[in-house]
């Protein structure tokens, strides 16, 4: 969660709390229960917007029957699942699937496993793409981090875990599970430090797949797109990827990336859940 999200969350929850306090202090009787229920509902909606706005925003556009025109000749239908363009009497529907590497935390990151995966990668890629007979794009947005800063962060984290471990070990009744967990965290940090030391650069990445389908009507183009994206999700399952179809605001922002690649701070703020 970034600083901007925390500021907005704090402002919103402050209002919700003031409403609850204001209602509790007044003698509204049963109506105070209604206001508290409304406050609970508002808090739930705020949390949904914070962690799953891709569910809330399409629901709102479907209920209000809103279409969004992001640019001239482009339309995002109320389902918020595709960007449509009408050219030469044909509808082109473009959709996106987030395709990031699973955010595993391994007990100890093994360099040997990585080497095997890297040898297999070109073959896997060719086998996967030779079975695709429709247009698609696989995008990797990357930005290299400062090696020194990254290494210092890792060393600080390792130092913290080591301190927690030594405190736990010197306790009168040490918790074995907590100690094992801390040892695992220390090994992971050490493995990451070793990787940086061996010349690997720390990277920020966002990966996603884009596909375009055609149809003589909006519905046909959207249905064909869904078929294509489902097929892509099945085909790319051979890679260790978390595949999620993108809806709502992030769909608009991914489409905008065809024209502008945002700065790293903007990328971190814009993409949280789906990509």
């Amino acid at each position, binding site marked *: 969660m970034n600083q901007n999200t925390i500021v907005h969350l704090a402002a919103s929850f402050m209002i919700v709390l003031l*409403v609850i306090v204001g209602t509790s202090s007044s003698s509204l009787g049963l109506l105070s229960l209604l206001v508290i229920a409304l406050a609970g509902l508002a808090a739930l909606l705020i949390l949904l917007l914070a962690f799953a706005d891709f569910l809330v925003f399409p629901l709102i556009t479907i209920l209000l029957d809103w279409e969004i025109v992001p640019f001239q000749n482009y339309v995002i239908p109320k389902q918020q699942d595709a960007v449509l363009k009408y050219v030469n009497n044909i509808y082109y529907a473009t959709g996106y699937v987030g395709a990031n590497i699973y955010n595993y935390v391994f007990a100890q990151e093994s360099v040997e496993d990585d080497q095997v995966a890297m040898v297999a990668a070109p073959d896997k890629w060719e086998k996967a*793409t030779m079975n695709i007979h429709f247009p698609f794009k696989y995008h990797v947005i990357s930005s290299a981090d400062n090696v020194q800063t990254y290494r210092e962060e890792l060393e600080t984290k390792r130092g913290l875990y080591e301190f927690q471990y030594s405190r736990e070990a010197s306790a009168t009744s040490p918790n074995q599970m907590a100690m094992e967990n801390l040892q695992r965290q220390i090994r992971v940090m050490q493995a990451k430090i070793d990787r940086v030391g061996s010349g690997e650069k720390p*990277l920020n990445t966002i990966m996603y797949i884009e596909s375009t389908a055609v149809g003589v009507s909006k519905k046909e183009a959207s249905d064909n797109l869904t078929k294509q994206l489902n097929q892509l999700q099945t085909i790319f399952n051979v890679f260790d990827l978390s595949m999620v179809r993108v809806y709502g605001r992030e769909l608009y922002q991914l489409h905008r990336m065809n*024209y502008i690649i945002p700065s790293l701070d903007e990328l971190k703020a814009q993409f949280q859940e789906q990509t």
Partner: protein
Amino acid sequence: MDSRNERVYLVIVAGIGVVLAVILQFIPPYYSYLSVIVAAIALIFAILAFALKDYFFLIEPISHMKGKTLTINTNDPFYIAANGKCIVVRSEGNAYATSFIKIPLYKSSTEMTDDEKFNFASLFSRMISLSAIPMRVSSQLNVVNKDEYIKVITEKMGAVEDRYNAMANDPNADRKAAERVKGEVNMWHNLLDNVTKANSQSQVAYATVTSAGTTEDEAVTLASINAEQLAAGISAALGVPATVANGDEMLLFIEPEYLIPPTTVTEFMKVDQK
């Protein structure tokens, strides 16, 4: 996104919400329904204060909304810069220039040994860590644009058909020569059938990088410098001659109608439905 404007709106919206919530405490108990209404409005402002974080860009379009269409931008999404080496987008007083770098990779993994595969994957990892500013590396599969090819075949077929018609109407024409021309007509027909029936595809790799500036010239100059640097870095990392895309070449990476060209779209739809 202009974060300063976003903060101003946040202060206004959250401020109204707080004021309403404070007023709530001073409403006498006999105006209980008024209390509920004020509380509900304050809660709406609470939700709005949070929604501003991600949906600030929709505030202005919603204020100008007519009917059920929310128009964010009425202009084309971009235009090609005067130097033809990048596209330009104007947004909130700034100019953004985006360049595309073609990465010609023609080697298949079937031609590589295990060591070469490992080296290729390592070089690719090195390539994506070339830039500290975000860059996008993409691999694209698109339907081949056969418009020009089909045009040439149609023209040649038309010329041979004219020749055959002339020979067929000439009583003194050599029959054997006429048969040969007829065979040629059939050949062009078959070739045209095969070319239009097959859904040919090609895979291309490219990198994208954006530079921002207060003026278009500044953004375009920066984008050109960054793109040339990146092209040199990619060429060195992968050992291929990466070049900056020019003019209409860029449209293949941006516009959906270039992914599936208009002439081949009908055939693509037939193949797609099978």
